[in-house]
């Protein structure tokens, strides 16, 4: 199969040297994100995230199904991430690569396990009917830091999504089409975001030879190919950590991880505000007809 191309020795040496001296190819600071942009589609629940040259599109869909027998009071919520050859020829159709597995597992733990979406609210008739919310993640262009961007896309899409309104008269359930009734947003509890730190070994600082790990934020694909290990921290703007993952790789000081988590909080706050603002803009833009007046409140949350 076509394999991801190895960067040349010159590139490896140069980038490491540059990073140790605090420089990056694109002139960013070590902890600086690339240009971030978020667009919503005309339809509900479509979020298009652009982070530098990385571009990710998330689409949410809902349909009525039968809940799992072991959890009759919960709706169904799935996130599917299938990397297509579009992102890179190294990704083959329906043959999950390691990147893909780790990505989907991280989103799983960050968004699903942290109950960002209240699945109980998706239940229509206990044990018989419930909503199945499905997020499809499409990586259009892969230039590093898939995890952070994907997480942002998923969260934004879910918060933007509206599911058809339903009503119960007696014991008959009716699902209103968009034409009949304005769709309603999902009941959203909190917005977790991923921040990935990429480590590039350590340098000794000061005369006492105290070693200090050097790390980058929002790495490009090239930088990712050269990092020695990475650590992804997911939390919401209240500082509640949903998950921390350091999938192996070279060891780093425990202290560093703790420091990272505190820095992650700032970044998460920025991202969180960014998404809120974008959602607000979008709802204002839709609100022109004044139809969705009552919905705009939800976006502010």
């Amino acid at each position, binding site marked *: 199969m076509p394999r991801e191309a190895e960067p040349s020795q010159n590139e490896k040496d140069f980038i490491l040297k540059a990073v140790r001296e605090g420089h990056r190819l694109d002139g960013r600071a070590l902890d600086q994100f690339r240009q971030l942009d978020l667009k919503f589609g005309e339809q509900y629940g479509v979020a298009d995230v652009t982070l530098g040259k990385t571009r990710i599109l998330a689409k949410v869909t809902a349909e009525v199904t039968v809940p799992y027998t072991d959890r009759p009071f919960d709706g169904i919520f799935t996130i599917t991430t299938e990397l297509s050859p579009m992102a890179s020829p190294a990704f083959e159709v329906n043959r*999950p690569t*390691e990147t893909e*597995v*780790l990505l*989907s*597992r991280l989103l*799983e*733990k960050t968004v699903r*396990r942290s109950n960002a979406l209240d699945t109980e609210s998706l239940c229509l008739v206990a044990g018989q009917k419930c909503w199945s919310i499905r997020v499809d993640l499409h990586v259009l262009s892969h230039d590093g830091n898939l995890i952070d961007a994907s997480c942002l896309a998923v969260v934004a899409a879910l918060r933007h999504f509206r599911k058809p309104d339903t009503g119960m008269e007696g014991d008959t359930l009716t699902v209103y089409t968009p034409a009949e009734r304005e769709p309603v947003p999902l009941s959203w509890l909190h917005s977790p975001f991923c921040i990935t730190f990429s480590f590039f070994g350590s340098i000794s600082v000061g005369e006492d030879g105290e070693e200090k790990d050097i790390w980058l934020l929002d790495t490009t694909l090239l930088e990712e190919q050269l990092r020695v*290990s990475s650590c992804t*921290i997911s939390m919401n703007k209240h500082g*509640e*950590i*949903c*998950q*921390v*993952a*350091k*999938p*192996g*790789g*070279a*060891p*780093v*000081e*425990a202290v560093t*991880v*703790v420091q990272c*988590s505190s820095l992650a909080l700032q970044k998460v706050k920025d991202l969180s505000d960014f998404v809120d603002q974008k959602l607000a803009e979008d709802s204002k833009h839709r609100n022109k007809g004044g139809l969705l007046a009552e919905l705009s409140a939800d976006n502010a949350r």
Partner: protein
Amino acid sequence: MPLDTSTYNLALLRVDGRRWNELRQQKGQLGVQPSADGSAYLEMGNTKIQCIITGPNERDTKSTSSASTAPTSGGLGATVAVSIMIAPFATVDRKRRGRNDKRLQEMQTTIASGLAATVQGQSYGPRSTIHISLNVLSQDGSLLACLINAASLALVDAGVPMTDYLVACTAGSTSSYAAADEEADPLLDLNTQEEQELPFLTLATLGATDKVVAMLTRLEGMMATAADGCKGVRDFLDGVVRDKGELMVQEGAIGRGEVVSSMDLD
């Protein structure tokens, strides 16, 4: 049935009667499978792992399709290939797991890249592979931690050079964010019941040092306890290896080694 941890802070004892910072009963043995290049059996409480190591060798690298691999010493060393098998009888409810269970694959990847960081593979050359197959015989919490520990033990048995034991341990916390009771003690080495109820983390450290190699967690803050636990585990594993070594020396299988002490430095 849900576990009620509210009593923990009062009774200072856990479901299985441990204190907050007590490890479970551990048993370990080297060379349980003579035909393998290295093997180990490890129990932490009721979590029981058998680890078999084949290689490093150059044969059937293709057959490790289901395994996750990671190159050591920057691609210049041998490749580490890890595959986990969970026996259907390992859990209370007999369930079969598919080959492509993402949870398993994630653990495989984590273990592989974690070990790759401590194994000194450059002496073997990039063409050789170390196959590590982990068999979960019984499962009662701290699975990832036990797998990592068993693997390290088996690697030592196989005589693969490592910078140190890669040891792992879990820690949980009874303090809920809502209650905001920071006084609550973290818990060491969780079992399944506790794992299901509490936020916990798995911390793998490089033996004596406090360097974090791999961890998959829900909540941060119990790292210190986990790091402590890791030391405990390391001492235990070290003990197992030493006993085995002494035995071999007694039997005369290997010559007694000299001891470098400050004395004989002339």
